């Protein structure tokens, strides 16, 4: 990739690369649909039936299902792979996820510490039953 430049390459006439984004076989779409449906049903069923033990445990299972479902979507529907667009879709996605993780977890860390150290603000009381 480092010595590669597309100025002279045959990415002629604006076709998305034949094995790149946006194209896949009917089979992969059907598989993706099936997997995604199963994962979604799992998540919904889990909550409908009351979860697995503590709230934290159920939350972690849901998190794993969410990540799995997103990966299924990325690989079966979006067909993102390391050859698409010279690997740049993977790189940009990795950088974006890095920023999301830093911003999300960094901020949660910061906000949690602030809330511990500061006086409770009005309106942060929870409602009955929660």
């Amino acid at each position, binding site marked *: 990739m480092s010595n590669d430049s597309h100025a002279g390459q045959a990415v002629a006439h604006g076709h998305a690369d034949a094995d790149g984004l*946006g194209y896949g076989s009917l089979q992969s779409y059907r598989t993706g649909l099936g997997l995604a449906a199963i994962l979604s049903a799992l998540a919904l069923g889990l909550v409908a039936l009351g979860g697995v033990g503590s709230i934290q445990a159920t939350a972690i299972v849901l998190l794993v299902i969410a990540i799995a479902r997103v990966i299924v979507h990325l690989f079966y529907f979006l067909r993102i792979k390391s050859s698409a667009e010279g690997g740049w879709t993977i790189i940009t996605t990795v950088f974006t996820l890095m920023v999301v993780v830093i911003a999300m977890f960094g901020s949660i860390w910061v906000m949690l510490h602030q809330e511990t150290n500061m006086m409770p603000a009005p309106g942060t009381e929870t409602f009955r039953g929660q």
Partner: protein
Amino acid sequence: MTTTTTISHGKGGEAPVFHVTDEPDHDGHSTVIGFWMFLMSDVLLFAGLFAIYAWLGGHYANGPAPLDDGHGSPLFHLPIVAVNTVLMLLSSFTCAIGMVEVRQRHVGPALKWFGVTALLGLGFLYNQVTEYGHLAEIGATYQTSAFLSCFITLIITHSLHVVGGVIWVAVLAVQALLHGFNDANERRAVCFSMFWNFLDITWVCVFIFVYLMGLLK
């Protein structure tokens, strides 16, 4: 290394060549990666909304909360959430089938599948609109608490993206009828399918991190 035959690289005493003498057209070669980057910025936008929901979503201000809307029933309704999830997932699938037809330049079948995608999207939007209506009815507006501000803003942002997608596919349909799936329209269809799939991915995050986690007791 570049593949055009009109360049050599100065092997064995030849003078190095410093310019290309023949090159193909580059029209639209950056569109896919450019649109992908725009989608990444959209992912970050939603990440910001999710982050705000993570920090402020628990501030109910003595008002409605996911498990108790103040009238004895939960604010989040699992059946409707399930239906919405199915609608979005199916629409991703029909969009993908549409793309198979686009690649083969079959305008009619492609538009049929995109039409189904749009209809499923409209169904999703109808459910969302009825949900807001219900919230307004029981006095759960975005002015009631930080939780509701965050929740409603997140849902409405997603719904507005769906509206955008539906308008987009309608315009694309008109353009495909006028010009078929020429290079430009094919690029647009690829971008649309990327966008629509990302909407489904965002919905997955919404339905799991907001609705389902909110309903845990």
